[in-house]
Each structure stands twice: as structure tokens, then as C-alpha cells.
């Protein structure tokens, strides 16, 4: 285990006027991990990702990525450093083709690829995310499942050191979820550290190395799935939320 974690977050808080969306959150992610983030609706998970990747500026706190502080830095700088995110509600460039969408990530992300080099890389990523046959299609005509994969493909094209996946399994059927879990593992196996927010708790438990649980903007628990599942505070946090399937050993 390397001495310095890839990502370390300390006392992260974000306030919107009267609402404290994040309250003193802290955790660490090691290189090569799949790090899950779960919590009831409104727990602040997406806000956390937004702060990590520069879409939002934290009110307080420190975020260290690859040894350097990135809190408050704008998105393009964070992406250049190797940390990228997908959006919970997909944001494709509808008037561009799938290939062109991915090329934006390839050209302007950390990889900064050009020319035929970029094209090769784009094609690779499209194959890996199952969009190979749809390369020349306009993004505006894709199905929701394909759009979710496009989000991931675009982010991967930036050649990140770590990727933040925001509810990529939302709206997928069980077969598709299994496929998504496989894709996530393959991303990690290719050397990219994964942080993932997910509502499908059983899927997260099945694929994550460690998990962070948030509720009301605060950290409730952090640890391996086995421990999280039996943590009384975590169970209490979820008892009131009907949208989440009951935690258990069955996946």
C-alpha cells in the first residue's frame, strides 16, 4: 500500500445560503481502488463530486489529489491533473456525433491527444464501452443506456488517473447492471482508480473495495462492504428511505 493516498479529502464543507450540503466530510482513496459512495437522497453525494472536480468551490476544506491541493480549482485544471467526472443527468453534446463527443475528452483532457493518435484512442474507448457501432451517429438520437455509456466514454477519453462515476447504473435493468459492473472493473483493471456514487446498493457492495456512507452531508461510515452493511448507523440512515433495497448479503 503506497504511503500517500491518491485522493485525500479533509473537512470538506459546502454551504448554499442556508443549506449546508456537505459538513466536514473526510475520507481517503488509494490508487487502484474502486471506492463506492452511498447514502439516501439528498445526502450530498453529487455535491461532493462537484467539489472534487471543480464544478463547485468548497466553502471549507482541503482536497488533495496526487499530492497537490485541488480544492477551488476550476474543472479544466482538475481534469488536466487527472481527475474527471460523469454527470448523473447525462449531458451529451447532442449536435455532435458520438465520436466527436468522445474526441472532446481525448483532445482536451489530461491526455491531450491529437491527430491519428487521438482517433485510435477514441476508437479503443468506443469499443470498450460498447459504442463502436454508433460512432458516427448524432448523440441526440442515442438511447438512455447508450448516453450513459457515452458519458463514461467521454470521461475515459481524458485519460484520467481517477474517474468519478455518478449513478451510471440509474435506470438500467438487471442485465445491464451486471454489464456496468463489469465495465467498472475493467476500468480499474486498466489502471484508473474509480469513485462511484450509486443508488443500487447491492451493486456497489458487490464491486467496491471500500465504501463511504453519507447522510445529510455528513460522513456516517467508511470501510469495507462487509463492515458497512452491519454498521447500525448506516442501517438507521437507510431505514427511512424506501427507494433503497434492504441491505443484506444477497446481491
Amino acid at each position: 500500500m503506497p504511503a500517500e493516498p491518491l485522493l485525500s479529502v479533509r473537512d470538506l464543507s459546502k454551504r448554499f445560503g442556508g443549506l449546508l450540503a456537505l459538513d466536514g466530510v473526510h475520507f481517503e482513496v488509494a490508487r487502484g481502488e474502486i471506492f463506492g459512495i452511498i447514502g439516501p437522497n439528498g445526502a450530498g453525494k453529487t455535491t461532493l463530486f462537484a467539489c472534487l472536480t471543480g464544478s463547485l468551490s468548497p466553502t471549507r476544506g482541503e482536497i488533495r489529489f496526487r499530492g497537490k491541493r485541488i480544492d477551488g480549482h476550476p474543472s479544466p485544471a482538475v481534469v488536466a491533473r487527472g481527475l474527471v467526472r460523469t454527470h448523473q443527468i447525462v449531458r451529451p453534446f447532442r449536435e455532435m456525433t458520438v465520436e466527436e463527443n468522445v474526441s472532446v475528452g481525448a483532445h482536451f483532457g489530461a491526455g491531450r491527444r491529437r491527430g491519428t493518435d487521438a482517433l485510435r484512442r477514441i476508437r479503443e474507448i468506443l469499443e470498450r464501452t460498447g459504442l463502436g457501432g454508433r460512432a458516427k451517429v448524432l448523440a441526440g438520437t442515442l438511447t438512455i443506456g447508450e448516453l450513459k455509456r457515452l458519458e463514461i466514454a467521454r470521461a475515459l477519453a481524458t485519460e484520467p488517473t481517477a474517474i468519478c462515476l455518478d449513478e451510471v447504473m440509474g435506470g438500467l435493468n438487471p442485465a445491464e447492471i451486471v454489464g456496468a459492473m463489469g465495465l467498472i472493473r475493467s476500468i480499474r483493471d486498466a489502471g484508473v482508480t474509480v469513485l462511484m456514487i450509486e443508488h443500487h446498493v447491492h451493486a456497489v457492495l458487490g464491486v467496491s473495495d471500500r465504501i463511504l456512507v453519507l447522510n445529510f452531508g455528513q460522513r456516517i461510515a467508511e470501510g469495507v462492504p462487509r463492515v458497512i452493511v452491519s454498521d447500525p448507523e448506516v442501517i438507521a440512515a437507510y431505514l427511512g428511505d424506501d427507494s433503497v433495497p434492504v441491505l443484506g448479503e444477497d446481491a
Partner: protein
Amino acid sequence: MTDLVSVLVNSLLAAGLYATMAYGLAVIYGVMRIINLAHAGLMMLGAYVTLTLFDRFGLDPFVGLVVTGPLFFLLGVVLHRVVGRRLPRSDAGPSMESLLLTFGVWLVLQNLAYYVWSGDTQSILTGYTLKSVAILGVRVGVPSLLVFGASALSLVFLNVLLRTTYLGKAIRAVTQNRDAALLSGVDADRISATAFGLGTAFAGLAGGMLSTLYAFTPDFGRSFLLKAFCIIVLGGMESVTGVAVGALVLAVLENGLAVYTSVPTSFQDAVSFTLLFFALVAFPQGLPGLFSRFVRRGALH
């Protein structure tokens, strides 16, 4: 010291007019999220209508406001039916389409004015136009005083309207939170029509008042439109008070410049605008929450 008093008095007087001008723009934006560039053309039209009432019927321009107000309200409702309705109402913010569309209307209004009234410079000269009065030791033109009175009256009337009538409250509700207002049963179409009517009415009133202070041509209105925009950015548009504050700030800035520096008048507009422009940039998070809708950065999905 007299300089300061002069600045304050003149600013206060100008602020009333500016607020009337700005409010017309604010209400349409607040309710429909449309930036109505035709506002400039409507103010210009207001000036010309006042001129016609004065020339043809001998109606004193300030008395004429009583006619102009309701007339322009009707005009606004008509405009809404013909043009405003078909605009895509994006709640994510004002659209370029609405901007360019209202811009087109402005151009058409200008051309109309050229045809009807010719491009000659016009002005309204009444018995009191050149008279002045001393206030706190400062010489103030009678028209300016009357304009302040008229605008104060209209704004008070507006305030009462907004606070007591159903339509007024509905307008305030939609401006603050469109979705919630619509969910509680507010008729979007009627509110929009009313807002357009009010906005146009205030443009007409402002134009009528401006006609007593300045000479005008069909091209008139652009610099005032810009001032109205600056005011909205400074003071927000959710309340009459906000607009009034913004108007005062702009007026003080302009009068201060005129009195304390030797900037020639033709330059003044350019300078005020530039100053405000840079203020916008220096304090993007500064003035009332509205700024977050104007400036990029920290967008929350």
C-alpha cells in the same frame, strides 16, 4: 459642499426616471425570462406619442402620461399575443432567440417612427421647459422636478398594484419561483400578458418623461436601454425597491462624474458604462443574489 448637494439632488431626481425605465425591462424579464430589447423602441415610441398628443391636441406632456400609460399597456398585451407568446420559454434562463426577436421588433419600431414622424430631431417645449427652481441651493429644471414626481407616483402606484391585487401578487410569485407559482394555479398566459403590458406601459411612461427632458430621434433609446440594463444588474429585479436602489447608484455615479471630473458630456455615457462593466467583473458575487444568474462559475446541476 454645494457640489455634493448638487450631485445628491440631481441624482435623486434622475433616479426616479431611471427606475421607471428599468422597471419596464425588469418585469418582463422577471416573469417571462425575456430580455426585451424592444424596450428601447417602446420608450422611443412613448416619446413620439407624447409629442403627437402635445402637437396635435395641445395636451401637456405630463397630463399626456395618463393617456400614454394605459395605451401602452394595451399595446403590450397585443405585442404579447402576436410575438411574445411564441417564444420558447426556457427556465434555464433567457434565450438568444428572445433577445434577437425583441431586437427585431425594436428595429421595426424604429423604421415605423422614421416613416410616421421623419428622422428630424424633435423636442417638446412647454411654458415651463426652461424654467428652474432652487432646491437646497441647487438650481433644478422644472421638467426634471415634474418627471421625478410623475415617476414617483407611477412607482408607488405600481407597488400598490403588486402588493394588493391578485395579478400583482402572482407576478411577484412567478418572478421569485416560477414552478411553484404555476403549480399553485397561476395562469401563465394571463400573467405573461399582464407583465408584458406593464413593461410596455412603463416603457411608454418613461419615454413620455424623457421627451420633456431631451430632444429625440427614432434612434433614441439605446443608451437608456443600456442604463436600464445596468440598473437591473446592480439592483436586481425582484422588487421595486431593488430597481430604485440600482437607479440611484447609477444616477449618483453619473452625476458624480459630471461634477467631479472634467469628462466631456459626450463621453459620459461611455465612461459610466465602462465603469459599471468593470464593476460587474470585479464583484461578480457582490450585489444581490441575481448575480449568480448572470455570471458563469460554480453552476450546480
